[in-house]
């Protein structure tokens, strides 16, 4: 259990944009794909959107996965298009990786691995949050 996040009001920027928390593993449900569709549409409309991976959601970022082996259209490949949609802030919970014995080996670049406190602080920089 971590200590509570303490925030200092004076250093805060106004919260803006949408944070999407991904909490489900990629293949057995459509949550990951449904979240991706929301992220891409926000990007296409030039609205700020950031992606957060927590719990089993971190499995969506693991390198060397291949959904085609289980007949699933590999939507994870679309993650590499984030930069074209100006989706730049991608955060993953360090504790969730550690709990699952996962290395910081992702199939996309520029993923920021954050402690629980920093993960919470990054979430707080957003005006709205959806979780899938």
């Amino acid at each position, binding site marked *: *259990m*971590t*200590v*509570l*996040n*303490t*925030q200092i*009001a004076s250093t*805060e920027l106004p*919260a803006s944009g949408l944070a999407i*928390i991904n*909490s489900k593993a990629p293949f057995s449900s459509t949550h990951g794909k449904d979240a991706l569709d929301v992220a891409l549409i926000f990007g296409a409309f030039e609205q700020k959107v950031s992606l957060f991976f*927590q*719990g*089993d959601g971190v499995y969506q970022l693991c390198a060397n996965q291949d959904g085609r082996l289980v007949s699933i259209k590999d939507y994870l490949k679309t993650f590499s298009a984030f930069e074209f949609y100006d989706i730049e802030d991608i955060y993953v*919970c360090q*504790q969730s990786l550690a709990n699952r014995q996962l290395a910081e080996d992702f199939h996309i670049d520029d993923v920021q691995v954050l402690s*629980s406190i920093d*993960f*919470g*602080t990054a*979430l*707080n920089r*957003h*005006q*709205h*949050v959806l*979780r899938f």
Partner: protein
Amino acid sequence: MSTLHFVRQSAFASNDFAQCLSVLAHQDSIVLMDDGCYNLKHSLMDSLIKRVDGSVNINVIASHAQARAIEIITAVNPIEMTDVVELTFNHNKVITWQ
């Protein structure tokens, strides 16, 4: 920046409540609803209450707990849906853990 957390799942069945607690900050509030009410009897709740010592406002929708025959402990406020609406606008944002 304060966040209102809607907790709708039992921590005996899912990690949602634990994930919520890992990003919880001072000034935040929690509302237990639906099967989230079962968390009143979960060890995570005991440790949360000790840890936050009143700095996080913890609520439960009274009818949701009562329907499930769950006793509401004194550290947790029983509230109604109108209070949930009011809390929504007393905080900067809402995260639903379901």
